[in-house]
């Protein structure tokens, strides 16, 4: 797959340029036809998830400047470099810990919907609070791209985020962007493409628990889960949820659906519709 594939309209020099990828993006709206890659868009409320969603799919989901605008899950699709993506816009949540309806939708989709990649939209002006969610998502899945949104607003407020350092800390690509104006969108697509194609191997930060006994309990339980459901990737997180008595995770263990979350099952499922 080369960058010059579909950029026939531009001059040769531009066509070869890695940055000229706008022509590789085809917005497909809600076209339900076969998709290769499922992409989730998650993040805190009012960080611009719906704006990113709209920019990629060409849909015009209403975007509001208030927390809680998106109360359900929306789906759309786009094609980038001849691979078709299904994009799922999740409701904004501050965490995946407590049990509000929104958090359940987001958390269940990340766990049971098994997205191939999750774009976490992060508000650069409220980095710390947003990172809490990023760290929690990284406990569920490694395949994450962090969209560092609203960098223009952060700049206006005198805040500069070192995105390269953040990439090193989180272990996943961090793309600075201003979704409202469309800047950084190409770089985001590029990162998503590289994570899903395996060109980049992400190694998401896993938070160690400071309390030794919690750490031990989690490790022990994670081993048991590993033994019962071989291939399940996020055993530590599932162990933690079981310790906390999360009902939907308990159900998944009890009825065995957790086994379907193993990497083997994921590869089998995704290769069905895969054309590349």
């Amino acid at each position, binding site marked *: 797959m080369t960058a010059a594939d579909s950029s026939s309209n531009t001059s040769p020099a531009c066509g070869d340029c890695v940055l000229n990828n706008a022509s590789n993006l085809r917005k497909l709206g809600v076209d339900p036809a076969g998709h290769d890659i499922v992409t989730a868009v998650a993040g805190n409320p009012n960080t611009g998830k719906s704006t990113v969603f709209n920019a990629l799919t060409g849909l015009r989901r209403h975007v509001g*400047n208030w927390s809680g605008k998106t109360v359900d899950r929306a789906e759309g699709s786009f094609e980038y470099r001849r691979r078709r993506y299904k994009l799922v816009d999740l409701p904004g949540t501050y965490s995946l810990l407590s049990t509000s309806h929104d958090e359940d939708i987001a958390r269940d989709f990340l766990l049971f919907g098994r997205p191939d990649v999750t774009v976490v939209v992060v508000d650069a002006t409220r980095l710390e609070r947003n990172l809490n969610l990023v760290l929690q998502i990284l406990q569920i899945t490694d395949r994450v791209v962090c969209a560092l949104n609203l960098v223009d607003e952060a700049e206006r*407020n005198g*805040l500069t985020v070192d995105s390269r350092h953040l990439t090193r800390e989180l272990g996943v690509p961090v793309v600075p962007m201003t979704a409202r104006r469309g800047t950084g969108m190409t770089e985001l697509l590029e990162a998503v493409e590289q994570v899903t194609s395996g060109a980049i191997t992400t190694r998401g930060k896993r938070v160690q628990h400071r309390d030794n006994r919690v750490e031990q309990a989690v490790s022990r339980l994670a081993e048991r889960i590993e033994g019962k459901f071989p291939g399940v990737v996020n055993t530590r997180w599932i162990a933690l949820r079981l310790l906390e008595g999360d009902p939907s995770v308990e159900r998944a263990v009890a009825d065995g659906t957790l086994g379907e979350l193993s990497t083997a099952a994921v590869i089998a499922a995704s290769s069905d519709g895969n054309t590349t």
Partner: protein
Amino acid sequence: MNRSAILDEAARLRAELDDDFRDGIVESLYTEASRITSTTLSRRESPARTTWDKLLDRALTHRVWGFVVMGALLFGVFWFTIAGAAAPSGLLSTLLVEHGHGWLTRLVAPLHVPEWLTGLLVDGVYLSTAWVVAVMLPPMAIFFPLFTILEDFGYLPRVAFNLDRLFARSGAHGKQALSMMMGYGCNAAGVTSTRIIDSRRERLIAIITNNFSICNGRWPVLILMGTVFLGKLVPPAFAGVVAAGSVVTVAFLGVLVTLLVSWGLSKTVLRGETSVYSLELPPYRPPRIWRTLYTSLIDRTLKVLRRAVTMAAPAGAAIWLISNVTIAEASLAGHLAALLAPLGWLMGLNGLILLAYVVAIPANEIIVPTILMLTLTLGPDLLGADSGVLLELGTAETRTVLVQAGGWTLLTAVNLMLFSLLHNPCGTTILTIWHETRSLKWTTVATLLPVGLGIVVTSLTAAVARSAGWV
């Protein structure tokens, strides 16, 4: 096989941990987030931009000025809507109703179609659809973009912030202010947006009271009544202001009723604690005017209009039918209106208006054309109209028709404004309430409570006006 062994193991390990181990888990996350932030984020001295934001917030969320600005903005939006919509509405009405209907009639005439069929299609379906387009399109095309710009700017959460204290005092959730604002566009959307409220008790309160936010289907009634009756009470120079003022008054009355009913519910059938929540005040963002205009025109306006039109077409047919099917010397509509007349009189309205509200349950948008058509059909023949045919009317003629053929007074107009605030939600909203609550009991309450309130309130104002000798 023993999957539950894992669950048992989890329970055993949990018992070994301290009670507050969950706090420790959250703390580890927060500490890590804080550490990463401190190493990646660098701060310059706060520039002047922030103070401007803060200054604006201080004014917009001020205990007193916050409410003043809120009133002024709301008034401004309605005034713009009323004043701006008058001319294009008139133009569309001339084009679609006057010329369109005449042209269509002439077109059909040589085809020798049975009279009842042309009556049903041309006079019933076409005219009411044309009417809805002419009456609704211009105000919505102005109202929705203005509202969306306020939303884009970040004003809505400030409104929620201002109203939070009032809602908390009535035992409701502060975020109800947000679902209330959504209800001003469409109650069905408002009911769906109550999902942001987690507590079931408070969510039910928000759903039941959402109908007191006047949706776009009801604005035309208020705007028309305000313009042709209340605006006419003052010299023409002030007519627009008085009309807008009366509409805003009804809207504020809606907020008041919302608070009162929320209070009543939370003290009786929906008792419980008020939840604590955090509301984020997003930074003010310059609205992207062109994009807002485009999306609110395409998405909101046309979507709502499409719904109105699909509802208006069959309703138009229904009205034509009940006006033209005759049983024992009088039309079906006549019988029904006579049946409703005593209740109508009690409420300071009339049987026709109530009949119109029954016909318009599927969609409130068609109230005005239905009332006009029924008045023309059943009242004394003033303008030589055929039965079930909507006449081509400007605002001046509308008043003449209502006063002379319908016997309307100022009380009728005022009570119609009140009743359009306080009556059952439209069919779509009732269905949405059912979907969201899955409870027959609460759907019934949400449907009947407002109309019950409407009957009581209008009967009271009618009784007061009559005993004072105003009418």
